[in-house]
C-alpha cells in the first residue's frame, strides 16, 4: 500500500508543519528586518531597498505565497474534518490538565489563523501595494510610510491585537510543528516546548514594540 505523503492525516501534518515552520522562519527574518527601523530611516530604507533589489526575493515571495496558501488550505480542511469526527458534542467538556499541552492557543488555532489571514491581506496591501511616499533617490520610503501608518491609533490597536494573536498561534505552533515532523526527544522536547513559547512571545513583543514606538515617537524625523 503506497503512503499518502501529503494527504493522509499524518501527511497533512507534515505539510502543515513544514509550511508553519517556514512561515515562522519568515517571521523571524521579518522581525529582524523590521527591527532595523530603530537604526533610523537611512539604514532601514537602504536595507529594504537592498532586499527589494535582490532577484532571489521574488523566489522567496512565491514560495512564501505557496506555503501560506498550502498552510491555509490544509489547516482549514483539517479543521472541518475534525469537526466531522465528533458530530455530537459533549454537554460538559473540560481540559484534562496534567501533562496535557492544551492551551487556549492550541484550542483556537483556526481562529488565530483566520485572523492572521485577514491581517496579512490588509497588511500586505497596506505596506506593499498601497501608494507609498518616495525617498530622495527615488525608492519607496518605507520608513516614512510605516511612521505615517502607525500614527493612526486604530491601526496600532489592530496591530497590537494581531501581534498577540500571532504570539498565541506560534506559542502552540512552533513546538507543534516539531512534533508533526516527528522530531521528538526526551531531553529536547521539553526545551522546544518552552523555547517555542518564549520565541513566540519575543516575536509578538518585538512587533508590538515597533508599532508602539512608531506611534508614540513618530520615529526619528529625518
Amino acid at each position, binding site marked *: *500500500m*503506497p*503512503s*499518502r*505523503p501529503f494527504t*493522509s*492525516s*499524518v*501527511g*497533512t*501534518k*507534515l505539510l502543515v508543519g513544514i509550511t508553519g515552520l517556514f512561515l515562522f522562519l519568515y517571521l523571524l527574518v521579518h522581525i529582524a528586518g523590521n527591527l532595523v527601523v530603530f537604526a533610523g530611516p537611512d539604514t532601514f530604507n537602504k536595507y529594504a531597498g537592498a532586499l527589494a533589489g535582490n532577484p532571489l526575493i521574488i523566489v522567496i515571495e512565491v514560495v512564501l505565497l505557496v506555503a501560506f496558501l498550502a498552510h491555509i488550505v490544509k489547516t482549514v480542511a*483539517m479543521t472541518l*474534518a*475534525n469537526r*466531522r*469526527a*465528533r*458530530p*455530537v*458534542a*459533549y*454537554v*460538559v*467538556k*473540560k*481540559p*484534562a*490538565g*496534567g*501533562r*496535557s*499541552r*492544551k492551551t487556549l492557543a*492550541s*484550542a483556537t*488555532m483556526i481562529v488565530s489563523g483566520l485572523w492572521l489571514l485577514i491581517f496579512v491581506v490588509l497588511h500586505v496591501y497596506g505596506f506593499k501595494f498601497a501608494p507609498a511616499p518616495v525617498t530622495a533617490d527615488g525608492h519607496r520610503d518605507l520608513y516614512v510610510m510605516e511612521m505615517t501608518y502607525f500614527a493612526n491609533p486604530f491601526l496600532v490597536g489592530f496591530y497590537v491585537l494581531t501581534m498577540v494573536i500571532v504570539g498565541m498561534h506560534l506559542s*502552540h505552533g512552533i*513546538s*507543534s510543528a516539531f*512534533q*508533526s*515532523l*516527528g*522530531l*521528538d526527544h*526526551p531531553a529536547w*522536547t521539553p526545551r522546544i516546548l518552552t523555547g517555542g513559547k518564549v520565541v513566540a512571545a519575543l516575536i509578538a513583543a518585538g512587533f508590538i514594540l515597533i508599532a508602539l514606538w512608531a506611534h508614540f515617537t513618530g520615529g526619528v524625523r529625518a
Partner: protein
Amino acid sequence: MATISITLKVWRQDGPGKPGRLVDYTASNISTDMSFLEMLDVVNEGLIAKGQDAIAFESDCREGICGACGLVINGVPNGPVRGATTCQLHMRSFKNGDTITIEPWRAKAFPVVKDLVVDRSAFDRIIAAGGYVSFNTGGAPDGNCLPISKDVSESAMDMAACIGCGSCVAACKNAAAHLFTSAKVTHLALLPQGQPERYTRVVSMVDRMDQEGFGNCSNEGECEAVCPKDISISGIAQMYRDYHSASIKS
C-alpha cells in the same frame, strides 16, 4: 466508612442514531470506598427493582486492564483521577452533594450503541490493518536468539501497555485516534521482531485510522493526559517519523 449522596446526570440514548438526553438520578448513602461503577450498579439496582431499564455501561475486569469501561465524567474521560480507568475511580474522589455528569465517548468512529456504551470496533480494524508481526504459529526461533536491550524492551512495554480503551479519542478535541494507533506502531517499531514490516505497517494502520473517520491530531496532548496507561505522545512523533520515512522510501 463515610457515605455521600450525589446527583447524577446520565446520558440515556436508546440506540445508534437515536436522540439522547441527560437524565437526572440521585444516589444516596454511597460509601466512599465504593468504586464509581459500583455506584452505578447501585443506581441500576434501584431501577431494576422498579422494573425500569438499567443504565447501560460497559465493564469487565474492573481492575483497569481490559479497557472495556470508560465514561466521560464531568467533562473528562475517566474522571478526576489521572492514570486510571473509570473502574479504578473511587467515590472518595467526590464530595457529598456533588453533581456528576456522565457521558459516553463521543466520536463519529465510536457510534453510541446504547446509553453509555459505544462501538469501538474501529480499533480492532486498525489493528487488523497491520498491528502484528506476520509469521505462522510454530515457526518461531528460540526466544533468546535475539537479545534486546532492557531499555528498548521497557520502552516497547510502555507502548504495549495500551488497553484500547479509547479515552484518548474521547479526550481529543479532534476525536483523533493517534495515540492508540501510535502505541501499537511504536511498540512494534522498537523491537527487532517488528522491523521487517515496520514501514508497511505504519502506512496501512494510518490509512485504516483515517478511513474510520477519526480526526487529525493537533498535538494537544489531552490524550496523553487522560490515558489510563500513561502512553506518551512521543509515540505519535515516532509514528510520524516512520510514516514520513515510509513516504521517502517508497
